[in-house]
């Protein structure tokens, strides 16, 4: 593209806007296919297995380690102000409000997102999508929509698992290893964590992230060039775009939910 040529710049800008418009229409299409897709639940549950069950291991182990680290770091900082009994509260709030939704979304983008992108990109490269269109079967309905809704169901559940396992991890390090009082660990947590404000907002965040990450993965796969480099570039773009989107949205959502 010739940067100095106004016609080329104009065309490129128009194509960029057109790309965004097309992606927005695809998103809207996927949203409106909610009811028909969930009616064919067998397709969704298959995808739920691939996206959810197969990500469970990495989410749980990561959650455990994050919980360990929170327990350690939290203890070192809190005990300087004599507030180490608030460790449970610190670990729970950090996980439920921020780390649970965000880190799970990032891990999901890396594991499930890339596999979605690669699968759909390769289907396109192997002409499977075209074959389906020629058989008068809409690929958006048959291939994309079940994966979209499976991702939307899977990620909030995975975030919850992450937070829960993380809290347990914090308990293991704080109470079992370091010796913080078990009673105050749990009671301060119960007193300080508000179900609607903290847990509820965390769930809302993870739902927003689920829509974002799954859509980005499907979009990159569906619009990938049907060549090996096209698919590989698409999978990289999935991770980059989804991660940036998650972090950006996290800032926005936190500002709206926990505003000054």
């Amino acid at each position, binding site marked *: 593209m010739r940067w100095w040529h106004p016609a080329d710049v104009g065309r490129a800008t128009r194509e960029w806007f057109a790309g965004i418009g097309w992606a927005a229409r695809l998103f809207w299409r996927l949203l409106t296919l909610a009811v028909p897709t969930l009616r064919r639940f067998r397709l969704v549950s298959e995808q739920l297995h691939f996206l959810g069950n197969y990500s469970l291991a990495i989410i749980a182990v990561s959650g455990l380690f994050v919980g360990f680290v929170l327990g350690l770091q939290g203890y070192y900082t809190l005990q300087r102000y004599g507030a180490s009994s608030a460790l449970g509260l610190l670990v729970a709030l950090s996980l439920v409000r921020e780390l649970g939704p965000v880190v799970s979304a990032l891990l999901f983008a890396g594991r499930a997102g890339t596999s979605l992108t690669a699968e759909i990109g*390769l*289907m396109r490269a*192997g*002409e*499977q999508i*075209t*074959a*389906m*269109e*020629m*058989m*008068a*079967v809409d690929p958006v309905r*048959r291939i994309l929509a079940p994966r979209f809704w499976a991702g939307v169901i899977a990620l909030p559940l995975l975030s919850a698992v992450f937070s829960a396992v993380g809290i347990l991890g914090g308990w293991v390090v704080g109470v079992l290893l370091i010796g913080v009082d078990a009673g105050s660990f749990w009671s301060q947590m119960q007193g300080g964590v508000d179900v609607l404000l903290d847990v509820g907002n965390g769930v809302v965040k993870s739902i927003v992230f689920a829509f974002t990450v799954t859509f980005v993965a499907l979009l990159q796969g569906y619009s990938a060039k049907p060549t090996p480099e096209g698919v590989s570039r698409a999978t990289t773009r999935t991770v980059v775009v989804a991660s940036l989107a998650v972090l950006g949205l996290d800032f926005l959502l936190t500002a709206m939910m926990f505003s000054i």
Partner: protein
Amino acid sequence: MDSPAPDSTTPAVAADTDNLVVLRDVSFGYGGRKVLDKVSLAVPRGKVTALMGASGGGKTTVLRLIGGQARAQSGAVLFDGHDVGAMTPAALFAARRRMGMLFQFGALFTDLDVFENVAFPLREHTDLSDALIRDIVLMKLDAVGLRGARTLGTSEISGGMARRVAMARAIALDPELVLYDEPFAGLDPISLGISARLIRQLNDAMGLTSIVVSHDVDETLHIADHAVVLANGGIALQGTPDEIRHSTDPLVYQFVHAQPDGPVRFHYPGATAEADFGPPTHGGSPS
């Protein structure tokens, strides 16, 4: 099983009982390059029509136009009297239900096994019971000789077998028209012979209309009833296989007899040999 009727607003050309597919003055191109320039051809019902020509000659484009994958920039592509390019999505959906397409390397769904691949159109478009679907799938697989391979995965079958499974899938809904995109590319002689025979047999046994796009002159002309040679955005010749074989048109002759140089040049256009290899020219002296 519901199939929306073709859109009644697109006027049907006087129902052509002779030709199932008609291209009338069709032009198609992209990026300034015209792939098809005012091409007119007719595909007779119940016969095997061969579409041949050099690479990039527009053969696959014709298939895409017929299937509604691409829209002609001018002219009309008629399927059973209705213009494919002007169809509503519902009408296109109904039209595609009456077509089957075989892609170059099969394009089987890799996450399904052989049986499920053939069953796919039945499961998607019909409400038939599992038992009935099983019987139909096994019959289609039997027609291509692969009934025993029904539980194999797509990675466990050879290229020739994959193509035959794709053929079974293409005829699963008993279409009227089957489009074959390079069905013989990369096959060993036995598989090639089997594929050619199957195309002919299925066409006659099921009363299909078949369009075969291929480079393989001998095999294709052997099974075709009618042949079209495309070149340079237009039709070089159309007629019976014998007419093609014995044509004296330079382009068709070069193609049929596999000659390296003729109307389709061997050398890619560029600088002359003298300019690249000859003695260096000093400014002013004629090259």
